[in-house]
């Protein structure tokens, strides 16, 4: 069964025909070819598929595509500048070596973006809590935490 939805994806308003059975993750990857968002566990435990929906981090694998109607969705592709330049947070992931295999990275960047938006001065514990819905199986957590912390520091000192 197809339904028509209207939503904004990475700043672009669009009208889409989606299957009621598909997840937002399916929609982003298969219909819009935004393959930066990854499918990890598929059951909302690993956070690899996290996207921003109206500014909140949510797992797109357990979010029906039809629910996107009227929503503002930002995937990892929408966090970079119009010229493709990295956001300050992404640049810090690079600079701090917070990327190993890279599969969890889009989800971490999305959740960290939401975290810093809500709380520009997070403590170490608040960063851990804000990223607790994202798993890195290379277990490179410390450098990820460092990247988020330095982004907050840099924004404060700007």
């Amino acid at each position, binding site marked *: 069964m197809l339904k028509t939805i209207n939503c904004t994806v990475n700043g672009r308003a669009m009208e889409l025909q989606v299957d009621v*059975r598909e997840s937002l993750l399916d929609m982003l990857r298969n219909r819009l070819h935004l393959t930066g968002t990854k499918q990890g566990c598929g059951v909302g435990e690993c956070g690899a598929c996290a996207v921003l929906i109206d500014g909140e981090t*949510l797992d797109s694998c357990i979010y029906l595509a039809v629910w996107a109607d009227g929503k503002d969705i930002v995937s990892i592709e929408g966090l970079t500048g119009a010229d493709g330049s990295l956001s300050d947070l992404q640049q810090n992931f690079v600079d701090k070596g917070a990327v190993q295999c890279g599969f969890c990275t889009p989800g971490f960047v999305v959740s960290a973006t939401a975290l810093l938006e809500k709380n520009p001065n997070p403590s170490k514990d608040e960063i851990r809590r804000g990223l607790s819905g994202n798993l890195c199986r290379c277990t490179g957590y410390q450098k990820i935490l460092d990247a988020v912390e330095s982004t907050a520091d840099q924004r404060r000192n700007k």
Partner: protein
Amino acid sequence: MYQINGYFEASTIKEAIDYLAGNENSQVIAGGTDVLIKTRERKSGYTDKDLVGIMRIPELKGINLDDDGNILIGSTTTFTEVEEDEIILRNIPSLSAACGSVGGPQIRNIGTIGGNVANGATSADSASTLFAMDAVICLEGPEGKREMPIKEFYLGPGKVAMNKGELMTQIKILKENFMCFKGHYIKFSQRKAMDIATLGCSIMVKTTGNKIDELKVAYGVAGPTPIRATEAEAMAKGMEITAENLDLIGEKCLENASARDSWRASKAFRQQLIRELPKRAIKIALGGGE
């Protein structure tokens, strides 16, 4: 792709009830953090359903105080919304903490307190605190509205007293069950996030000086449904708060519990937690250390 037959987005309570009552194959879906997982697992009863979305029904959202000072929590209020709500933080911080202990941010941003209860799991983080406050579950169906105490709402593991076509609209917490009480929730789990409680314990305590006027102790995972330690509660009335008495209360709590072995923890370990956690929770609620 999920194995779903159809999807209907309800925009009013009536629309949802009419659809649910008129379609044998219907299934309510709120945040989807339980329903979609079960659908993905192809759990029996959760595939090929006609899902009814209720997240866009405005009356089911938000937290308010009624004219009598009771707290009304809309069933589709998310864990994050409950955790951060001013009314909840001011009056029942233990419920804020309980909702803040669920899963991780992504789950809390969409999972709902109504779903947590309607799902009937003994481990539901919000449930033990709602038990400790004798929350009232408000339902609406084709036959009208009805209310029932949360302890009657839970019938068994995964089973709740909701009829076909009924929708949980609100969770009501009466003023007398939180005013002048201090509360605390302890989720004992292997990890700090993305974990299910090995045991959950929520207490509400009212004191005069060093004496307990009233104590309410509720558990998750200490039985097939959340439970209250009514024996210990009765005994605690009027007791002086001393280490010995807290030990007695902890021991007495076992009388209402029926912990069991699971891969998460042994029965013996759970029984130790049943003894220990209310003591810690009482101390923390009353401003003591731990």
